[in-house]
């Protein structure tokens, strides 16, 4: 415990880096997954290859992907960008299916009403289909967010500083305190990400609350 109070500011700095490395890919991944998910839903032929393809990306172990990133995108081995890109790949892999299924769950009658009201395809997607798919997409985002926080810590092995550095430091010095603090901080961060996503989802789907109250 004394270790924690003495190194509080270090832990805070590492937490900041962890938030960046896990959070930015979450947003980028969502932005990339929406058009891909829409394609998979709109064109049935594309569904299996997109879902299986992204699923295969998700099978690549994180340490291997982190190490291969410089070969694939030509960066330096210690560049944090490697981690951001790798995490974005994982996020996309999880979310494409979520987005496709979320859009697919929008009732056909609602889509037809929107078309009848004069919505073109793009407006219908952004103003009708995506908002209605938010609860499903949000569930996928929560899984991705929690996984991201956990996976990012592996990047400490290749020397990218974040909360995982507490694990490698503690292990090297045969000292459990930093490892325990790191594990707790990771769990706390994952819970925070989860709560933020739940909060945002509630904010942008006011009709869900009305329905529940009624």
């Amino acid at each position, binding site marked *: 415990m004394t270790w924690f109070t003495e190194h509080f500011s270090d832990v805070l700095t590492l937490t900041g880096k962890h938030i960046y490395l896990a959070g930015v890919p979450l947003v980028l991944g969502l932005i990339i997954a929406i058009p891909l998910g829409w394609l998979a839903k709109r064109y049935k032929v594309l569904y299996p290859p997109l879902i299986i393809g992204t699923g295969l990306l998700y099978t690549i172990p994180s*340490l291997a*992907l982190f190490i291969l990133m410089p*070969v694939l995108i030509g960066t330096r*081995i210690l560049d944090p960008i490697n981690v951001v890109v790798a995490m974005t790949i994982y996020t996309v892999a999880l979310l494409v299916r979520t987005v496709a299924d979320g859009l697919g769950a929008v009732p056909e009658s609602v889509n037809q009403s929107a078309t009848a009201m004069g919505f073109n395809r793009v407006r219908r997607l952004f103003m009708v289909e995506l908002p209605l798919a938010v609860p499903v997409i949000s569930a996928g985002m929560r899984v991705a967010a929690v996984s991201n926080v956990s996976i990012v810590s592996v990047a400490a092995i290749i020397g990218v500083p974040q909360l995982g550095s507490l694990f490698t430091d503690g292990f090297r010095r045969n000292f459990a305190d930093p490892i325990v603090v790191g594990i707790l901080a990771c769990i706390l961060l994952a819970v925070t990400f989860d709560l933020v996503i739940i909060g945002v989802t509630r904010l942008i789907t006011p009709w869900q609350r009305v329905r529940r109250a009624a």
Partner: protein
Amino acid sequence: MNAVLSWLSDTAHWSGEDGIPDRILEHLAYSLVAVLIAAAIAIPLGLFIGHTGRGRFAVVNAVGAARAIPSLGLLFIAVLILGPRLGGDAAFIVPCEIVLVVLAIPPILAGAYSGVEEVDPAARDAAKGMGMRGFEVLTQVELPCALPLIFSGLRSGTLQVVATATIAATAGLGGLGRFLIDGLAVRDFGQMAGGAVLVALLALAVDVVFAVVQRYAVPRGLTGRFGTRRAAGPPVTPEPALQATP
């Protein structure tokens, strides 16, 4: 890129005690042991929970929470605490195996209970109507119907184990992770990235094997291989909630 290819194509790396084939077998052995132990615990437990509905709330939350635990930290703390009490090779093999089992249980458990839970209630009622007892309903109706999701869970769990076994090389475990960690230690990028390619290929191979086994192990009535009914959902990827962390 060239460094990677030359490391991979060097015949010296493909033989001997610490050669690539040995490391692959080692990696598979560690993974297999962990998955078998985890499955022996999680599948019966999952079937019980799915069948009776008992303890469901606790398990659903535990499975979700387990995802948040960083595997690297768990590995290190296990080796630090258990290692000194074991000594020798067991000092890191046993704690690593324990962590691999612990990490494989949640996805396998989730697959088993959600598989049983999602069995068509009509099928369950028909079985009861035919006079089957609870245990017969479980083994003859619910279990076969739950197979697709049980396989999804096993597959997620296995991939998680293969990935975590790679990381476990930092804690002294053998397997393909050794190339990544040893290469990193001496700044041999060819060895590191070559090892990473092998790990990725191994994971993909395991995934493909699972997809094939699943296709033939699941009763034909469920997969739509009769050709008339469409299979529910895509055949390969488990749904996000069942996915483990790579």
